[in-house]
Each structure stands twice: as C-alpha cells, then as structure tokens.
C-alpha cells in the first residue's frame, strides 16, 4: 500500500508525521498548572481551587474564582490579540502599554460628567461643552487615537525600513510622554454613567472573547490573515508573490493600535479613572501571553487560540497564588520562569519537528 508506483518519496503523506497543533501543548500546560493548584489547595488548606465548597450555594464550580481568572487578564488579553498579529508578521510592538495610557487619558477627558455628588467635577479637563457627551463620542475618539498611533508605527516600519523594535520603542516613549503631558500628570476621573457601564462586571471578558473569535476567523479565513502569515514566514517570498507588504504592515500595526485603544477604553471605564501611569508594562505582559501561547517570535507561526490559552495561564497563576496566600514576590519569579520555559519548549518542539521531516 505504501509503495506507490509513482514514487512519491519524501513528499508522501504520512499521518504519523503530521505535527500536533501547538495549542495542544499550551492547553496541557494550563491543565497541569490548574491541577497543581487544586492539589496544593486541598493539601495545605483543605480547600478547593476550582470547585464550590459552600453548602449554601448550589453550584459545582467556584464561579467567582473562574470569573476573576479570566476577568483579570481580559484587558491585557485584548492587547495581546493585536500583539499576536504583529508577532506572526515577524514584528514586535512595544508601544501598546503606552498607547493604553495616552488613549485612556484622552478618552476619559471626553467621558466626564458635570456633577459629582452634586458638586462640579473636581477633575474636569475641558469646559462644560465636553461634559456628559453621548458615550459614542469618547469611544470613537479612542479608536481614532489607537488607529493613528498604530498607523504611525506601521508607516515608520514599512516605509523607512527601521526595525519594528525601534519604531515601537519610539512610540512607547512618546505616547507615555503624551499621557503625562495631557493633564500635567493629574488623573482624569468621574465618567458618565453610560461610559462607566462599558467596563462593568464581566463586560471586559465579553469584549475579549468576542474580539478573539473575530480575529481567529480573520487570521484563518481572510486574505488579510493569509498575508500576515506569509510576511512572517518569508517577507521576500511574500513580496515576490505580489503581496503589498508595506500596506499590509501598516494595516497590522493599525489594528494592533486599535486593539490597544479598546483595552484603554475598557480599562478606564472599569476603573472609573484614567491615569498617566496606566498600562505600564502591559506590552510585556501581552508579549508574554502571546509567547506562552506558542506564537513564535521568529514570525509565521502561532494563533489567536494559543494567545487566549496563554492569557488563561497568566490568570490561573495570579488567582492560584492569591488562593494559596503566597506573596507577590513568588508570583513574579514563577511568571518569569514560565515565560522562559514556554520558549524553551517551543524551540525543542521546532527542532524535533524539523528532525522528523
């Protein structure tokens, strides 16, 4: 059966040689971490990490904990969706955290309410004309900010040919400067009811999951997605085959910028305030989620699903350590080890995959 008369040789299809999807490994890692916390919790405190232990509540799982696990990573997760696309295209985006800060300041300035507990808003940025605007105004301004910042990144990278690391580093520093300059470092607070409703409760999770599904489909089934992978795999080959690489890159970075600005809108709404220091280090957390999720920094490989799993690993670790009442010191040390470990595993997997072919 396997001896074909046409002599397919090395090109012959062999189901055994088909690589397992990398997301499977990430999912297994997630499960191992969850089980570890469950076992440690039962051994140390006699309490369950995932399951409901209360007699007065009729539920199998401890839903408040499951909710916070995903809620606390949803906002950075939204940023990571954009970072995933940038990294798949072979680039990097260091500016997303600063775009969050700058956008939050600007958005909140157009989302303020005139009266706080019957007094004039003590943090008012503009005059009465900018008070109590319909919620669509700050949202559109926010998306515009993100699109502009992202497009500047993309244009710099595509047309001046400077490395993405440098272009987005510049944006990271400049956007942070803008967020501090905007109100001389003062926080901007007290939004309208309708703006505050955007980030209430589990809405950040809804946005995260919705956007994840959207971009999963986009990367999988659209020309935009296929071109993104093509540029990341081999930029020269992509150019030879007629892809407008420059235009594609501008689009990728603009979308990443807009996702960062969506994160800024949700974050400032959830916290009812915008502060110049918001989003510091978010870019690195977003990159870490992406890398843990199996997206290759070399470009061309990875998926939105992987990034979502990477974000969940982050969330499980944060909640697990609070559950075990361990200090933040250990949390950071373990987080660092997991990031490095994920990339080491990825390298091994790549090596063994190439050895088989």
């Amino acid at each position, binding site marked *: 059966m396997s001896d074909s008369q046409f002599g397919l040789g090395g090109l012959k299809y062999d189901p055994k040689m088909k690589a397992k999807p990398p997301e499977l490994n990430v999912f297994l890692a997630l499960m191992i971490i969850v089980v570890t916390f469950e076992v440690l919790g039962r051994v140390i405190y006699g309490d369950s990490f995932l399951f409901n232990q209360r007699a007065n509540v009729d539920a199998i799982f401890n839903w408040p904990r499951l909710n916070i696990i995903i809620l606390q990573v949803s906002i950075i997760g939204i940023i990571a969706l954009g970072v995933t696309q940038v990294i798949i295209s072979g680039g990097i985006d260091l500016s997303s955290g600063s775009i969050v800060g700058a956008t939050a300041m600007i958005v909140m300035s157009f989302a303020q309410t005139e009266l706080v*507990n019957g007094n004039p808003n003590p943090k008012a940025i503009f005059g009465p004309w900018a008070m109590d605007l319909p919620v669509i105004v700050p949202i559109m301004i926010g998306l515009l900010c993100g699109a502009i910042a992202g497009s500047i990144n993309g244009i710099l990278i595509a047309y001046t040919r400077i490395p993405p690391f440098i272009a987005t580093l510049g944006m990271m520093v400049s956007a942070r400067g803008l967020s501090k300059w905007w109100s001389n470092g003062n926080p901007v607070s007290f939004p309208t009811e309708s703006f505050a409703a955007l980030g209430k409760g589990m809405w950040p999770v809804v946005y995260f999951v919705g956007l994840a599904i959207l971009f999963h489909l986009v990367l999988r089934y659209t020309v935009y997605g296929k071109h993104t992978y093509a540029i990341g795999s081999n930029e020269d080959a992509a150019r030879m085959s007629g892809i407008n690489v420059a235009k594609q890159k501008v689009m990728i970075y603009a979308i990443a910028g807009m996702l960062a600005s969506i994160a800024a809108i949700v974050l400032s709404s959830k916290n009812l305030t915008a502060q*110049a220091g918001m989003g510091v280090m978010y870019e690195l957390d977003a990159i870490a989620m992406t890398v843990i999720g199996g997206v290759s920094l070399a470009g061309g490989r990875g998926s939105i699903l992987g990034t979502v799993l990477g974000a969940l690993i982050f969330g499980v670790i944060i909640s697990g350590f609070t559950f075990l009442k361990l200090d933040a010191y250990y949390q950071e040390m373990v987080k660092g080890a997991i990031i490095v470990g994920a990339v080491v595993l990825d390298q091994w997997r790549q090596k063994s995959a190439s050895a088989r072919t």
Partner: protein
Amino acid sequence: MKKTLVVAGFAALMSTTAIAENIGVSMALFDDNFLTVLRNGIQAHADENGIDVQIEDAQNDVAKQLDQINNFIASGVDAIVVNPVDTSATQAMSDAAAAAGVPLVYVNRQPINLDTLPDNQAFVASNEVDSGTLETIALCDNWAAEGKTEVNVYVMQGELSNQAAVQRTADIYDVIAAGNCKVTVNVIDQQTANWSRDQAQNLMTNWLSTNTPFDGVIANNDEMAIGAIQAMKAAGIDMASVQVGGVDATQDALAAMQAGDLDVTVFQNAAAQGSGSLNAAVALAKGEAVDQTVWIPFELVIPSNLDGYLSKN
C-alpha cells in the same frame, strides 16, 4: 582695567542669579498622582515667590536621578530638591551635593542617611508612622462603635520596595500589638496591589472568591481602597457592612467617602511638603540654618470633617 571689567561682569552675573534663586528639582516619578500634587505645590510656591525651578522626572530610575543631580550641580544651581526614587540610594546623592558644596533637600521620602546628613542638607516630609496609625485606630473605633469585639480584615499593600508601603503596613501591626485598637483584629491575608486601582480590584475579587467572612479592608493608599470598593460593590456587598480605609485623601477618595463607600482616609499635605522643601532649599542656599528634619503632620479625614478637605489635594 580689562581684568576689573571682567570681574565686574562676573559679579553682575553672580548678583542676578542671587536675586532669583535657581533650584533644581528631581522628582521620582511624574505619573504618580500624589507626587503630581507635590510637584504642582513646588511649582506654585516657586511662581508666587519668584524662585526659578527646573523640575526633572527621574522615571523611577535611581541611576537617572543621580545623573540629574550631577547635571544640576554642573549647571550651577543654588540648591537641589530631591524626591528620592529609592530611599536606600540617597548616600551617593548626598555625597555628590556635599562635594560640590550645593545644598540639598530631600522631600516626601526619608533618606537612609538621615542621621548623617551634612549641615547644608535637610529632609521635609510627613511621618509615615502617623499615617497607618491614624488610619488603623480610626477603623478600630468604627468597628467598636458598631459593637464588634473581634474583626477579620484584609490588608492591601503598596509596592513592596517602597518605604511608605512597608511603614504603613507595620503601623497596622504596631497599633494592634500596642493595644491601641479597641477590637481584636485578625488579618486574613496581606497582599500587594502595587498602589494600583486595577490590581486592587482584581485582588479583592480573588479574595471574595475564597468566601471568607470579613469586616473590612485596610489599604496603604486610596487608589487601592477604591479598587477594593469597586470589586465589593460589583459582588453586591453592602458597603455599610464593611469598613474600608485608605491614605492620601485624593479627590476620587473624597467622592467615594461622600457616597458612603470609603470610611477612613488620611490627608498628606503634598502642597505643604512642596513649599516646605522649597523654603528649606532657599534658606540653605542663602546660608541660613534650618531644621534638618521638618515634619508636615498627617491629618485624619472621616465623613464628619470631609468638607474641609474637598479642595485641598
């Protein structure tokens, strides 16, 4: 003749700089809410009194701050005001200023070499021992007034590398150990939320998911207290049933207190610290003697005296 002219010219130059004191200010971080109020206090006081100030942002970087101080010395400022990034790294700053004979004033954060400061250096701040103490005693009084004898609380810490976070947390335990609390306090858990409202929201929600009954949250600052309040409200907890305390008396915190959510905060007079440090710097530049340690008192803010603080920070 030429020589005397040059000397006269120099003397004229010197005298013009002596009229308006030229003070270099290095702030630890521009995008910190409290430090922004402090920085604005310095700027406002300088504008009122015709003092030239140049304010730099050390961006939480110890090395950058030392470079800024050396740059100030090189550009011949009359005195330097430093809001230290890291209070254990102040020896090098003191040495650099002392070697150049430039007066130096530390503001807001206590330098580790406070006991050995040279004569032309000083320290202006509020005593952090008071902040956490005022906060904890006021919360204890509230619990006692509710008729409780034993309470379970969560403690939210600021950045663990920061002296104020360490001190304010130590204050809580000191009040309990010294028997100054009217009720018995059991700390269920103590974690950092890095001064941040968002992290505090997440931390509080994580705590709520353990379903341990609790009577209150003692936070090292207002931002974290507000984050805890937002998480509790989202979980449907009646804010009248828990006591929440913070420190700073920010506008957001005072609004939360007006709404009946926040029970206790402590006002740290940032503007007075700013003007105090500038006054000390100017006096030292003129060669006058100043107290080496100037304490600006903390003030307790509770709903009954809230109105007096609405326009302060």
